[in-house]
C-alpha cells in the first residue's frame, strides 16, 4: 500500500499549475465566456511541453502509460477552469486506441494527439441510459459498414479530424473511427458553454478497417472507454470542487460581518469542513480507480464509485460555495460562477450519481 505520489507526479502538478495560472487569468476566461470555448494557444503550449502525452506510452511520444498522471492533468484543468475540453480526445480516443488497437494507422493517431491534433469521440445518445448498447447501428455489407444514428455531447467535434463512434451491429458493439468530413455536425448550446456537438450519421458508409479493435473486442473496448471516461471526468470534478473549496476558505476568512470574519462562525466553518471531507473522499476514490485501471482493464465498480462521489461532491460543494459566498457567489465578476456550471457538467455527463448507484447495485447483486 502506498498512496504517495512519485516525485515526477508532484512536478507535473506544480509545473502545470505555473502554466495554467498564467494562461487562465480571469480576463482570459472572460473572453471565452462568450466565444467558442477552446483556447488553441493553450493547447499548443500544453502539447509543446509534453502534457498531452501524459498517460501515453513512450513509443507514441508520451511519458508512460499511467492513468494517475493523466488524472493530474484533468484535475489541474478543472482547478483552473481551463477553456479546453479534452476528455474525448485524450481519454476516449487516445487511451482506447492505445489499449485496444493493433492497427498502425490508428496507433499513429496517438502521436498526432500528443502533438496537439484534435480527435474526439461521439458515444452518448439522447435518452439512451445504457451507452454500452448504442442505438446507432452499423449494417455490415462485405467490407463496408453503413452507419445510421445520432450522437450528442460530442466534445470539439467541429474541430476534430476524426471521431470515434460506438455502434451496434450483427457482430456486436464496434468502435469505429470516422473522418469528421463524413458526418453531419451541429453545435449544441450547453450550460457551461463547452464546445459540444450533435453528430448525425445518415447511412454513412466506411471501410471496416475503421474499426479500432480486433474482432470480438468491441464491447470490452467500449466498457473500458466508458470507465476511463468516468474516472477522468471525476478528476475534472476533483479540480473543480477543490477550487470551489479553496474559494470558500479564502472568502470566508476575509469577509467580515458582526465585527468578525464569517469563517470564525462555526456554522460557516463546519459547512466548509464538510466540503473538505467530500473532497478528500473524491480524491481517494479517484486515485483507487485510476491506479487499479492501470493494471486491470475492467474496474467498473471502482469507476462507478468515483463517478458517484464526483456527482455528489460537485452538487454539494457547488451549492455550499454559492451559499457561503452570498451574492458574490453568483456575481459574474467573481470567479465562482464558472465553476458551478462546470460542476453540473461533471456531475451529469456519462452517468449521474443516481444512475450510477443503480448500475453499481446491479453489479453488486449479480452473483445470485
Amino acid at each position, binding site marked *: *500500500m*502506498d*498512496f*504517495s505520489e*512519485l516525485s515526477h507526479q508532484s512536478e507535473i502538478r506544480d509545473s502545470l499549475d505555473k502554466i495554467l495560472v498564467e494562461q487562465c487569468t480571469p480576463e482570459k476566461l472572460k473572453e471565452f465566456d462568450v466565444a467558442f470555448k477552446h483556447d488553441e494557444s493553450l493547447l499548443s503550449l500544453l502539447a509543446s511541453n509534453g502534457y498531452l502525452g501524459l498517460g501515453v*506510452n513512450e513509443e507514441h511520444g508520451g511519458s*508512460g*502509460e*499511467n492513468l*494517475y*498522471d493523466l488524472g493530474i492533468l484533468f484535475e489541474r484543468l478543472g482547478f483552473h477552469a481551463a477553456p479546453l475540453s479534452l476528455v474525448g480526445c485524450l481519454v476516449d480516443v487516445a487511451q482506447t486506441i*492505445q489499449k*485496444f*488497437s*493493433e492497427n498502425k494507422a490508428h496507433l499513429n493517431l496517438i502521436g498526432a494527439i500528443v502533438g496537439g491534433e484534435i480527435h474526439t469521440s461521439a458515444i452518448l445518445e439522447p435518452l439512451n441510459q445504457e451507452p454500452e448498447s448504442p442505438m446507432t447501428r452499423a449494417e455490415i455489407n462485405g467490407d463496408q459498414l453503413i452507419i445510421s444514428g445520432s450522437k450528442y455531447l460530442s466534445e470539439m467535434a467541429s474541430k476534430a479530424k476524426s471521431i470515434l463512434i460506438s455502434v451496434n451491429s450483427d457482430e456486436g458493439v464496434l468502435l469505429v473511427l470516422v473522418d469528421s468530413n463524413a458526418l453531419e455536425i451541429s453545435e449544441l448550446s450547453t450550460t457551461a458553454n463547452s464546445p459540444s456537438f450533435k453528430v448525425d450519421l445518415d447511412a454513412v458508409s466506411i471501410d471496416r478497417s475503421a474499426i479500432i*479493435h*480486433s474482432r470480438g*473486442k468491441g464491447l470490452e473496448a467500449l466498457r473500458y472507454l466508458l470507465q476511463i471516461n468516468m474516472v477522468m471526468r471525476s478528476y475534472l470534478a476533483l479540480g473543480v470542487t477543490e477550487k470551489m473549496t479553496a474559494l*470558500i*476558505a479564502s472568502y*470566508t*476568512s476575509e469577509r467580515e460581518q458582526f465585527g468578525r*470574519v464569517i*469563517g*470564525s*462562525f*462555526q456554522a460557516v*466553518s*463546519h459547512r*466548509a*469542513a*464538510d466540503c*473538505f*471531507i467530500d473532497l*478528500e*473522499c473524491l480524491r*481517494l*476514490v479517484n*486515485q*483507487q480507480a485510476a*491506479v*487499479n485501471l*492501470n*493494471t*486491470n*482493464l475492467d474496474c467498473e*465498480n*471502482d469507476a*462507478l*464509485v468515483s463517478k*458517484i*462521489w464526483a456527482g455528489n461532491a460537485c452538487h454539494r460543494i457547488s451549492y455550499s460555495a454559492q451559499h457561503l459566498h452570498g451574492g458574490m457567489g453568483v456575481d459574474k465578476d467573481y470567479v465562482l460562477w464558472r465553476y458551478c456550471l462546470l460542476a453540473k457538467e461533471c456531475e451529469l455527463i456519462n452517468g449521474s450519481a443516481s444512475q450510477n*448507484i*443503480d448500475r*453499481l*447495485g*446491479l453489479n*453488486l*447483486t449479480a452473483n*445470485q
Partner: protein
Amino acid sequence: MRIQDEILVGEMLVQLNPKQAKLKAELQEYFEGVMTTELKAELNNPNHFEGGGPEFKKAMCTMGADGWIGLSWKKELGGKELSPMEQYIFVETVMRTGFPFPFLTTESVGPMIAEHGSDWAKEEIATKILRGELIFGIGYSEPNSGTDLASLQTKAIKEADGYLINGQKMWTSLANFSDYIWLAARTDFEAKNHKGISMFIVPTDDLGFSMTAINTLGDVRTNATFYDNIRVPDSNLVGELNQGWSLITSQLNLERLALVNHGPVEELYRNVLKLAETTRISGDQYLADLSWVKHNLAQVYAGVEALKLICWKQTSIMQSGQLNMAEASVAKVYGSEFFIEAYRLLMEIMGELSLLKNDSELCVLNAKLERMYRTASILTFGGGTNEVQRDIIAMAGLLMPRTR
C-alpha cells in the same frame, strides 16, 4: 492489444501488498480459531457484550501466549513493533470477528506504562497486560468534563510516600470487570488546565473505589466510578508529574483511526448482501432483486470504499512517520457519520424484520443490526466530538480562522 502485465505501473499501490495480504489471511485464520462456540455464546449475553466473562478471559490469555497482544509495543518492551499498517490490519481482522478486544488496554495504556511507568509498573503491570491477564478502564471524563477534558477536577494530593486520590469519573467503560483504572487526576491546581494533570494506575479492589452502573441505549454497560480517599504509592504515577496531558493525547490519532476502522461495517454489508441474495420474498423473487434494495447496497458500498481509502491513507501517512491532523479528523467525522447512515440503509433492506431482537431463524443477522443502530451515536460525540473535529478540519485543512 496489450496484455495486463506489460502495462507500465507506478509504484503507487491502492491495495494491500502481498505481505500485508498474507498477514490478513493469517490473522483471519487465527481469530476464527479463537472464536469458539462457547465464546460466541458468552459474547451474545448482554452482560458480556464487552467481554469480562470466563471464555473472554481464557481467549485473552491464549492471545497473550500466542504473541497477539502488544503489537504496537517496541520490541525492547516485549512487543512486536508492528507498523501502523499491520496494526490497522490487526484491528480490522479482530473487529470483523466481533471479539471485544480491549485495544485501549493493550495498545494505548499498555505501551505507555511499559515506556513511562515505574519499575514496579513495568514489571508487574506491563508484563501482565502483554500476557492478556489485565484489563484497564479509562478514567478520563467527569460529570463536568467531557469535550473540555482538561478541565477535570479529580484530585491527587501528594503525601509522604504516595498520592491521595478523590473524585468522580463518568463513562468508565469496562470498570465492572477491569483490574485497574487508568486515571487522569489534577496534581497542580495553580497551573493552566492541561498543565496540571498526571496519570495514575488505580486498583479497582481498593476499598475507596466504588461504582454505579450506567445502562445505555445500546445495552452496553458503562459506569460512574468514585474515588474516595484512595492512597496509591509513588510507583503508581506514570510519566512525569503534571505531564499527563501529553500521555492522554499521544495516541489520539491511532485511537481515532481504530474507532472508524472499515472492517466491521464492510463485514456487515457483505452479510446483508448475502442475506438479501438468498432471502426469497415471493415466487422466485429474492430481496436483492428489488431495485431499492440494490440502491441501498450500492450506497453502502460506495461509502465503505471511501472509508477504507481514508483509513488506509491515514495509516500510510503514519507509516511514513508524518501526522496530518486534518485527515485524522476527516476519518473520525466521515466514519462515525457514515456508520449511522450505513446501519439505516442496511436495516431498511431487512425492513420490519430488523426490529426483531431474538436470534430466531429470521434474524440471525438482524439481531446484530438491531443492536448496532442503538450504539451508533456514541462515536459521533465520543473519541473527540465531531464539532471539535470539524473545527480542526477547517483550521488545519482549510487554514480558516479559529472558531468559537
